């Protein structure tokens, strides 16, 4: 199969996953609301009925913004701490849901609530281990890229005639980092597919198999992922354009923006499923060595 065929297969799987997408969207919304509702209380209280805050309706006002955040900073600080715990919880929940999502896609995107949660539960600890391994690997990558690069940047800062060289060094580091992250994400995805399809608990071994698989088929797996990421870029561009057109200055436009934002979030989740679907399709249909 070609990359395009896998890309379209993923789309077909994603289009059959609207219920699953909506379930994840609702969970995402509930988590965000758990912070947003107290946030609303914080900002209304911190304003103390001041008229100055109204300057933030028409657009941005630096003085109003700074003085307002100063008066709200203690409460927002508490909310931030709460947000960190919620983010960790959401991460765990995402690990949990990954098992359900992938197994559903593996079964032709036939969504059954009970099976979704049962598979989430079944693969949770395997995927948790996988996530921890990748956090460690990512930390090592950061060290490998940024340690020598920071030495280069420090040396340049001491010796270079112009700051231009520093800027390019930092950009080069950031691009390299991004390319490696993408590679690691692809490896992580295929490792999950292997765990799901083979129902294995040998996570470390599968990481290594996945590295070999992705590297051997680098010119298929990498461009496929980039093509799928292009969907997200397109979605962001369309959203930016629409939000620029609508603005947020009246009750009505605020409501329209709310709808657009929620459509954006829903679409992001749907695109994620599309990515999984296409990659899984590629994995299943490509001749690959069974677990060894």
């Amino acid at each position, binding site marked *: 199969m070609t990359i395009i065929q896998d890309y379209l297969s993923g789309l077909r799987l994603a289009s059959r996953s609207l219920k699953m997408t909506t379930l994840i969207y609702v969970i*995402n919304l509930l988590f965000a609301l758990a912070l947003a509702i107290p946030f609303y209380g914080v900002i209304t209280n911190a304003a103390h009925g001041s008229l100055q805050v109204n300057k933030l309706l028409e657009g941005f006002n630096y003085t109003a913004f700074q*003085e307002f955040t100063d*008066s709200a900073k203690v409460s927002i600080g508490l909310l931030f701490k709460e947000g960190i715990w919620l983010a960790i919880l959401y*991460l765990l929940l995402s690990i949990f849901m990954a098992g359900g999502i992938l197994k559903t896609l593996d079964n032709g995107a036939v969504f059954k609530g009970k099976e979704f949660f049962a598979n989430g539960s079944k693969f949770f600890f395997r995927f948790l281990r996988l996530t921890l391994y990748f956090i460690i690997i990512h930390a090592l990558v950061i060290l490998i890229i940024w340690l020598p690069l920071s030495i280069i940047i420090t040396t340049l800062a001491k010796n270079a005639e112009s700051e231009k060289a520093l800027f390019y060094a930092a950009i080069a580091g950031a691009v390299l980092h991004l390319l490696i992250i993408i590679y690691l994400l692809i490896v992580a995805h295929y490792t999950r597919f292997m765990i799901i399809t083979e129902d294995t608990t040998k996570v470390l071994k599968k990481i290594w198999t996945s590295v070999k698989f992705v590297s051997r088929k680098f010119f298929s797996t990498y461009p496929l992922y980039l093509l799928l990421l292009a969907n997200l870029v397109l979605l962001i561009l369309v959203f930016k354009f629409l939000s620029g057109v609508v603005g947020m200055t009246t009750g009505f436009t605020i409501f329209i923006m709310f709808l657009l934002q929620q459509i954006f979030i829903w679409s992001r989740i749907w695109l994620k499923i599309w990515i999984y679907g296409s990659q899984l399709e590629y994995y299943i249909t490509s001749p690959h060595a069974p677990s060894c």
Partner: protein
Amino acid sequence: MKCKKIITTAFFTCMLMLSVSFSGNSQALSPRIVNYDIKVKLDPVEKIVDGTMTLEWKNPSQDTIRELHFHMYLNAFKNNRSTFWKESGGQLRGKGVDTKDPKTWGWVDILSLKTPEGNDLTSSIQFVQPDDDNADDQTVASVKLEDPVLPGESLTLNIEFRSKLPKIFARSGFSDNYFLVAQWFPKIGVYEPAGMRYAEKGQWNCHQYHAHSEFYANFSVYHIEITVPENFIVGATGKRISEKTVENGLKQITYLAEDVVDFAWTTSPRFIVVEDKWKDVDIKVYLQPEHEQLALRHTESVKAALEYFDAHLGPYPYSTVSVVDPPFRGLGSAGMEYPTFFTAGSLWGIPDELRLTEMVTIHEFGHTYFMGILATNEFEEAWMDEGMNTYFESRIMDHTYGKGTSFVGFKKFHYDDKENQRLSYTRLLYPKIAESTRTSWEFEHGGYSSMSYNKPATMFMTLERLVGEETNEEIWKTFFEKWKFKHPCGKDFINVVNEVVTKNYGTGFGENMNWFFDQTLSGSEVCDYKLLRIKNNKLTPPKGIDDTGGNKLIYKKTEYENIIYKSSVVIHRLGEVVMPQEVLIHFEDGEEVIETWDGKSRTKEFSYEKPEKITWAQIDPENKIMLDINLQNNSRAIKPERTVFKKHLIKFLFLMQNIFQNFAIFI
């Protein structure tokens, strides 16, 4: 005392007139106390400047002078024992230094000091420390004279000196082959006769070099011949008179600068020179090649500043402006002013919307007016230079680049220079850190920049809005015209304010404006008024015993024909600073009432009995009192508009949803 002052003034006038023939070619604008004729040669490898100087100094007083004081600024970089080093910790303007590298250090030595008659005074040189007890500080030298200088007489000295330039971390020095040569030669201090500024008797005003202090110097004429390698490009204070090639691959450039308080120069083989003109003023920008695309941002902001100062303060009296753009590793010299010559600061790729280059350029140019033409004492009254200049900087920035966007002009994130200055003061963790009138070395823990730049600038904004634009304009023009080339002090400015405000308003602001400056300049307390409460209580009919008819009867149960509210607005003065206030009160039928209040009492209540309720109220509706450290608590509405909160609620919700989803990207 008064008689003494008249004599002093008459004496100065005579000196001013005489000075036309004393030195320089053109008509003197200033007293021209000193004439410096310096021949100097740069060794770019050793970072050494060798110079010979003929100094002609005029005794501006009626005193007999037996001792001279010289600034030896570069000795601040001689070792870690200097007062400058102790105060700065060897780190200023974001740059630290490698103390093990011998090239890091800088110094200046007087090799010989002789009279034209051949009397060698070198051995009489002694270092003195007028500001502290640091015997290791060598930034001020005293020279005992064999023959005293009589009132009005002049003294000529021939001096040989050698200056080793430090690696740049504060204002002057070198970075590779970029040189910013400032505070580089033995410079005579200011002798203040009795009656000048705060001097009760004649005295040398020659302070040590401190980390945070800038300078104070005589109006002088500089005739400087600079020798550098042929491939080096040179820029300097004043006018370029000649340039010629000499032997061994060297060239000599001669500059003449008249009626200026300092002379600085720069050289580097990497400079690109961009030239422009405003009226008869030649503008030159000495740019790093990688910053060539920023040339227009420099020249346009210089022209904007020239135009604005010309219209709102006074004409620019010099014929040149030179802007130096330091290299990345020489940024320790950026943002520093010298007469007709200053260093700006820019970075490659800096977006047009981030107007740091413009702000620094306009700010440093503005100093020419305050430390240059007015020539205030920056050691003792930094607010007069930095504060006044920062205030004008924000006026020019807002005028040129737009209110609300002049400093940062991105579509969704923008603010102007005035906001930036005000908030830099009002958002301080401790805005009472110091009075602005301290000498510059007395500020501690970051107080210098806040209290010399931002608080005085905010104070001037408040003054402008209190007295009105027209009166404010008159104040500044009068002050400049009266005191240019005369070294005014703080009280001279306040006297001008009092004079103009009293002329225009009588006693409308009190007997004078001292109350304003006593609180905001000499005081460290803050201004903060808060609109505490709005109440609307329905008036109830009378109850109980009514004996208005002679008999004691129970009030009959009645109702008012119309509902009447007893409404009130309560204001608290939270800060110690007292400012006259206006309060705007808005009723539900749209009626608005403006109340005035002297702002003195701790609380103030405005009450009304009306059929309409008060819906909102605002203290200082025109935002005149920019010194108020919290503008948010100046207003209150009974039913605040919720749309803005809803907007930010859904923005926050969306942000959180995205953050959570970003976490999930790793799954």
